C-alpha cells in the first residue's frame, strides 16, 4: 500500500530564509507526486505536479526516486507563504485508479 510521510507537523522560518518541506513516500510502482497548499479556511489548491517540473510562487520540488522523496523548496520565504502544505501521491492509471494519498501535512509559519 502507498504511504506519504511528512515528518514535520510545524515548520517555522523567518521571512527571507530558505524553506524545505519534507515529503517521503512508499509505493512499489511509478507514482505521481503533488504538493497541495491550504491557506487558512480555504480550499486545497494544487501547487505543484512533479510531471510538469514547474515552479509556482517560487516553490520547486524534485522527485528523487532513489530516496523516494519529493521535498518542497523555496529559496526565500515570504509572509504569504504561511499555510498548510500537503504532499500527495497518485498511483496513476497503472495502479488501477488515481486516488490521492495524502501526507499529514506541514504547517508553514513565516515570521517577520
Amino acid at each position, binding site marked *: 500500500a502507498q504511504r506519504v510521510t511528512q515528518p514535520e507537523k510545524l515548520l517555522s522560518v523567518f521571512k527571507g530564509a530558505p524553506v524545505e518541506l519534507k515529503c517521503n513516500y512508499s509505493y512499489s510502482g511509478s507514482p505521481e507526486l503533488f504538493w497541495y497548499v491550504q491557506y487558512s479556511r480555504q*480550499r486545497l489548491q494544487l501547487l505543484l*505536479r512533479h*510531471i510538469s517540473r514547474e515552479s509556482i510562487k517560487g516553490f520547486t520540488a524534485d522527485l528523487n526516486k532513489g530516496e523516494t522523496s519529493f521535498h518542497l523548496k523555496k529559496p526565500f520565504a515570504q509572509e504569504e507563504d504561511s499555510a498548510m502544505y500537503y504532499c*500527495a501521491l497518485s498511483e*496513476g492509471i497503472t495502479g488501477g485508479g*488515481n486516488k490521492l494519498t495524502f*501526507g499529514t501535512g506541514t504547517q508553514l509559519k513565516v515570521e517577520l
Partner: protein
Amino acid sequence: EPEVTQTPSHQVTQMGQEVILRCVPISNHLYFYWYRQILGQKVEFLVSFYNNEISEKSEIFDDQFSVERPDGSNFTLKIRSTKLEDSAMYFCAGNPTVIGYGYTFGSGTRLTVV
C-alpha cells in the same frame, strides 16, 4: 478559473439523521471524488466516481455512504444515518483525466454531527 462548488458550507445534523452533501464539478471533468478530513487529521480518500459508477472506494466508505450524479451535473454524497465520528470536512474534487493532471478541490462542507 473554473471552480468546484460545494453546498452547504456548514451543516449541523443530529446523530442518526441523513445528510446529503452537494457538489457541482467543473464541466469538462470526467472523474469525481469525495475526500474527508477529520479535524486535526489528514485528508482521506472516500470514493471515486467515473462514468456514472463508483470506480474505487475506501474502507471508510461503508454501506452508510452512497454517491450519485442524479442529473448529470450535481455530484452528491449521502450519509444515511450519521454518527458522531462522521463529523469532518468533506471535500469534493474532480479532474479531467486519469493521468497526473492534478485535482481541483471544492471549498468543502463542514459536517458537524451532534
